[in-house]
């Protein structure tokens, strides 16, 4: 454009000279006039086109980009079992029995006035006798005095030490498609908008809801982006950045946060840093506010940025039938600090620390109610529902109880060498601080405590059974600390990269990483050991194929959930402990994916 204009001016300036020098060459003048006319016409045409481009640029305010991934997983679970049970207050049980022995069915003096031992004093036909008939091992343990303060009672009728049925599960192939559409817009010279719409589905299913057999199957606000939820395009992120406020290094960002795929998880994703906080601690969609300050100029430390974050994880009133005025929960608030200590593009050190206050017994979400739980918890409904074994009713779950506070902290390090080798290490700490309350699924790091009560089941006016009823108190209100480590390396390899990763989570390890899109479940939330190996074939800068496998060795139940007491997987399999949801001992996921960025 500029060149053309210069050329035009040159022609115009030269025109008189040329005309004088060639007054006798009328043909030449005519030719030059024609050229000027042509150039003018072309300039006008180009000007029109530039105007259109300018108009289009001004109106086309969103810059779209994205990626598309198709993936095949082969899933294999070893030693899966389901043995739901309840925690019973045996101290209270003993107190109740010995305060009113005849009603419960125990005669401590026996028929001859000699104090009885063991279960000799059980009166036939009494509630205790009926209980002992159903659970002889439980009864023997109880009357021998060899019981803990809290015992577990199987809801499937298994006696103490009876092993639940266990089996292996193989899903030879599961196909999924994930599409993410990123948006960026320049609002003003120091204000940007960013967003990402995400669809993640497994092939052949767009119900958006799964049968509730694990917390991973719970469709909820914080994890929708990382769990298969049908063909809906959900808003995974939407926020603005208001930078250099008042000419300072402060920035303000509000909206649905970029709080997934943070470091160091970007290496296995074969992408750049995908989120702000540590991906080892936080991989969860939050709505909130970040106030940040770029400290590099102040400290001289490259890439140093401090961020204070606030968010809300649960709204207790709005939309929860609050006008009936029966709400007993509180809003769940989150706040914390995220500090990029050093970031020069090769070495990155990050500190993350935050708290979640007034955490409830599960977030709001939807799931298909399993027939197995209907049978246990809703026997009346089950009488009819049993006629439709292939139908599940859809449930909107709403937590009932504030169960405590959570605290999380972590320090991460990543390094990218000149030769393409990348490695990282991250240490995380989580603390569960229960308040002693419990909901349907339990309290924080604790089970809901049940109390054994007498019940007249046959309606004859006399108690004949002992049944557990929930007290909605936590069986244990001790503060519990958990820790996790995450290390990995990625090296250049023919046609791409090869990576190895390992992570471990302790008994009470409870990060917010449930939105990690591993189909078996967030590997970083695992209470146990996880190993992963993968090979990335870089087809071109915009396409890659990834082939790999993840091996899970679960040590404790409840990975990814602060609710419920973690039980040793081995104890559940041995019938010594119980779990409301099915447990898995080990699992492996072999996968192959093709990702296209655009």
């Amino acid at each position, binding site marked *: 454009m500029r060149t053309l204009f210069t050329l035009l001016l040159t022609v115009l300036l030269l025109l008189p000279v040329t005309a004088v020098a060639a007054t006798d060459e009328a043909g030449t003048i005519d030719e030059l006039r024609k050229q000027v006319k042509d150039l003018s016409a072309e300039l006008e045409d180009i000007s029109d086109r530039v105007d259109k481009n300018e108009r289009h640029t001004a109106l086309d305010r969103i810059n779209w980009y994205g990626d598309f991934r198709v993936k095949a997983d082969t899933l294999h679970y070893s030693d899966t079992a389901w043995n739901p049970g309840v925690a019973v207050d045996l101290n209270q049980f003993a107190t109740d029995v010995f305060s009113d022995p005849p009603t419960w069915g125990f005669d401590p003096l026996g028929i001859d006035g000699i104090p009885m031992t063991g279960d000799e004093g059980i009166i036939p036909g009494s509630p205790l006798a009926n209980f002992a008939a159903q659970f002889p091992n439980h009864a023997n343990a109880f009357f021998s005095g060899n019981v803990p303060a809290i015992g577990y009672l199987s809801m499937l009728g298994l006696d103490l030490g009876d092993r639940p049925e266990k089996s292996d599960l193989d899903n030879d192939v599961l196909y999924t498609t994930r599409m993410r559409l990123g948006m960026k817009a320049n609002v003003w010279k120091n204000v940007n908008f960013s967003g990402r719409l995400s669809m993640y589905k497994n092939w052949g299913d767009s119900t958006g809801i799964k049968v509730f057999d694990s917390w991973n199957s719970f469709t909820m606000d914080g994890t929708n982006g990382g769990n298969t939820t049908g063909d809906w395009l959900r808003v995974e992120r939407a926020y603005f950045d208001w930078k250099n406020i008042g000419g300072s290094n402060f920035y303000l960002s509000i909206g649905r946060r970029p709080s997934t795929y943070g470091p160091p998880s970007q290496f296995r994703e074969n992408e750049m840093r995908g989120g702000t906080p540590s991906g080892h601690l936080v991989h969860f969609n939050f709505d909130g506010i970040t106030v940040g300050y770029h400290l590099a100029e102040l400290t001289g430390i490259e890439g140093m940025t401090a961020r204070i974050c606030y968010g809300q994880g649960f709204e207790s009133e709005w939309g929860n039938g609050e006008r009936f005025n029966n709400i007993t929960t509180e809003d769940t608030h989150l706040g914390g600090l995220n500090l990029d200590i050093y970031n020069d593009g090769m070495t990155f050190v990050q500190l993350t620390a935050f708290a979640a206050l007034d955490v409830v017994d599960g977030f709001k979400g939807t799931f298909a109610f399993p027939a197995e739980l209907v049978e246990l918890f809703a026997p009346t409904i089950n009488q009819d529902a049993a006629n439709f074994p292939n139908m599940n009713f859809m449930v909107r779950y709403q937590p009932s109880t504030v169960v405590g506070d959570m605290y999380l902290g972590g320090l991460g390090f990543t390094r990218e060498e000149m030769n393409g080798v990348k490695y990282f290490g991250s240490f995380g700490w989580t603390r569960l601080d229960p308040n002693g309350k419990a909901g349907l699924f339990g309290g924080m790091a604790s089970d809901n405590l049940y109390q054994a009560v007498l019940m007249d089941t046959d309606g004859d006016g006399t108690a004949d059974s002992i049944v557990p009823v929930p007290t909605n108190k936590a069986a244990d209100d001790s503060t519990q600390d958990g820790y996790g480590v995450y290390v990995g390396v990625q090296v250049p390899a023919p046609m791409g990269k090869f990576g190895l990763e390992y992570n471990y989570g302790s008994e009470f390890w409870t990060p917010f990483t449930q939105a990690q899109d591993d189909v078996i479940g967030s590997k970083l939330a695992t209470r146990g050991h996880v190993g992963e190996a993968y090979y990335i*074939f870089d087809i071109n800068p915009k396409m890659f194929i990834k082939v790999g496998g993840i091996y899970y060795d679960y040590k404790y139940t409840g990975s990814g959930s602060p609710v419920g007491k973690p039980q040793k997987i081995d104890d559940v399999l041995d019938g010594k402990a119980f779990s409301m949801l099915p447990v898995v001992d080990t699992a492996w996921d*072999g996968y192959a994916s093709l990702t296209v960025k655009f």
Partner: protein
Amino acid sequence: MKKSTRILAVLFLAALFTTSALAAEGGNSRKGKYLYKKNCKTCHVAGAEGGELTPLSKTQAQWDRFFKKNAADCLEHVKGKLTGQDMTDINQFLFDHAADSDQPETCG
């Protein structure tokens, strides 16, 4: 959904076969960043002789065109401090971080 694992095996083989003729190539982006900061920023900052240039100043295609046109001039300008491969590394860094390249998805 149960299907034969052979499907997966075929996919693996297809992946290997498909990529056998394709590979990422070019300069070393990390090395390019180091060289860019050490050599280029002396001239290409605001107010300096060469005018401000950051990776975000151009698109990927524009950077490639820029180097095709100006690499020789730059080499001449730095008087033997950089080799042809160094320029390729710098080009790779600027290409990888161009205005239309993938960017970190963080706030702020």
